[in-house]
């Protein structure tokens, strides 16, 4: 240990101690710094339009790309679809994740808990693209779902390449994230609190509504934020389950960068997405207060 201490004295002398915190912060600052740098570059390229004759960005600065995003009905539609998709995904994911994690946390049978955990995590290990393919197989016209419907005499219906399919895929994809964020929040609620609610006259539903949900609020908001931002910026589910007809913003950005090579428009869309995501987070935090997320401070 002495040798270690002596080496430490040479590498990081005692007088440097006050700066230890900053030194440890460096990697984070570096990472965020690079991201900000990239963001500035994006902002710069979003201010140049693409010259269709030379396929080079224009020399002069212009807001033309933003005008296109705002005025072109296609982009309006895409943005609206992304926002609606994200909101619906948050709603349905939390609706399913809350009872799921509640049962997982409260069950007295460790076998049930294990089954719930494994069921949750098995799809988690499989990549998003593979899962989307899986859903294609299940939901296809001759897929498992339609075969099952056929058994009860229902004609095959188109379950794929529409908006509900994308939301379904997103909910299925987000569920593990939400459950993982909710479970600790529910674990933190003492069982005794629910027992108390029962002794005070609350039935199961009232206890859930007046005690469990308010006390799980930090977890619900945290899970909602994560699910919402991930869904808003998702690429694979709209691309694969939407079949090109249900593009989200990320798909539009991809098209601009890699199909039409219009970097400027792509960058403008990307920045729009950053703004949308930030506004979403800002709204949630201003409504519920940072305090509920355990970030200190009061509402």
């Amino acid at each position: 240990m002495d040798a270690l201490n002596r080496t430490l004295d040479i590498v990081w002398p005692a007088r440097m101690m006050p700066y230890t915190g900053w030194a440890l912060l460096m990697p984070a600052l570096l990472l965020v710094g690079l991201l900000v740098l990239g963001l500035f570059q994006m902002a710069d390229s979003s201010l140049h339009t693409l010259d269709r004759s030379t396929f080079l960005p224009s020399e002069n600065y212009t807001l033309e790309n933003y005008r296109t995003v705002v005025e072109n009905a296609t982009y309006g539609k895409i943005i609206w679809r992304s926002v609606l998709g994200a909101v619906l995904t948050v709603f349905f994911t939390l609706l399913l994740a809350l009872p799921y994690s509640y049962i997982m946390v409260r069950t007295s049978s460790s076998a049930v808990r294990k089954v719930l955990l494994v069921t949750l995590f098995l799809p988690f290990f499989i990549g998003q693209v593979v899962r989307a393919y899986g859903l294609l197989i299940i939901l296809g016209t001759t897929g498992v779902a339609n075969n099952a419907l056929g058994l009860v005499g229902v004609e095959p219906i188109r379950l794929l390449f529409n908006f509900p399919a994308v939301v379904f895929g997103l909910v299925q994809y987000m569920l593990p994230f939400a459950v993982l964020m909710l479970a600790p929040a529910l674990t933190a609620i003492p069982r005794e609190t629910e027992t108390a609610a029962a002794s005070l006259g609350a039935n199961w539903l009232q206890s859930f509504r007046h005690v469990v949900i308010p006390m799980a609020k930090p977890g619900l908001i945290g899970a909602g934020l994560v699910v919402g931002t991930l869904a808003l910026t998702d690429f694979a589910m709209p691309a694969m389950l939407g079949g090109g007809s249900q593009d989200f913003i990320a798909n539009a950005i991809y098209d601009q960068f890699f199909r039409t090579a219009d970097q400027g428009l792509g960058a403008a869309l990307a920045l729009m997405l950053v703004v949308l995501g930030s506004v979403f987070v800002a709204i949630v935090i201003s409504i519920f207060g940072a305090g509920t997320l355990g970030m200190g401070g009061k509402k």
Partner: protein
Amino acid sequence: MTDRSAAQYAPADGAREIAVRASHVSMDFGGGVLAVDDASFELEKGRFLTILGPSGSGKTTLLRMIAGFQKQTAGEITINGKAVGAAPPHRRSIGMVFQRLALFPHMTAAENVAFPLKMRRFDPRTIPDRVNGFLELVKLGGYGNRRINELSGGQQQRVAIARALVFEPDLLLLDEPLAALDVKLREEMQLEFRRIQHELGVTTINVTHDQREALVVSDDIIVMDGGRIQQHAKPVELYRAPTNPFVAGFLGLSSFVEGKATADGDLQSGDLKVLGVSAGDVTEGVPVIAAIRAEQIRLARSAPALGACEMQLDATVIDTIFEGERQMYIVEAASLPGTTFRVYHHDPEGFGLFDIGDPVAIGWNRRDLKIFRHAAE
């Protein structure tokens, strides 16, 4: 608080009404040991009963069965003549103060107290007045808008009491709510529980492992050990006349002597006849164990200084412990090798009269040494 005086809980004709009756109640969690083993007792309306016992004695299980959180595996519990077990907890009229209080942290003190009223569909117009009345009862008038985490430990206790009582339950259950408090606050809250219970006259069952608390607050005490009720008596009776060695050892500080019963009800240990009175079923020759409380043994420099003591022994001080208001000596009697006596000594002249190794004399009156049949090993 005039409208909520003791009168409403008291039986109209002064007759003794039974509020809670448990008959042959057992709880089997499996594993061969009964958590509660054939417990039977009755509790009169308006009285304060404490179930006292060490951890694992089954006292909390018994309370949870009365509350309806657990269903007994045998026997029957009735509250006000009605068998419980059929109705879920939220359909019963039982107020409970929990070990960790279980207040709702997302609500203010007043909202916590109003919660049972809302759940039990009291007239919304009467709720604020009622909440304020009960907050005043627990001396928290003006604290209604505080959030739970803005209240001190003692204030949180008071909110929990108000919340459990505000809907005027038939029965108040206290599940060791004072266990986590520091001594000063605990003693203050014990007196508060007593005051509030007297004011409202609500039938109360308290569970604790704190013998002092049990003696201070209760009208009746049930001592439990190993799932069985050991003794059910009033505090004074329980302390003065324990019916078995467990109760004698659990309340107060006792020293024990083992031996065999003599024909005239004393204890024979070797050549020495130890004078005492037998409690319960003791016949000549059976193995017995005798208990005597530390404050009932007299201690002096020599036998003549003991005064009138029916039993006198020579002993040696083997340890001396200063306890503040008194000195405790551990002494070993010469004629009872291996048996130590713990003696409280109040010395008006000053502490520290005897040192380790000093020869002393100890003595007691016959009636103070209780002789019990030795439980089969």
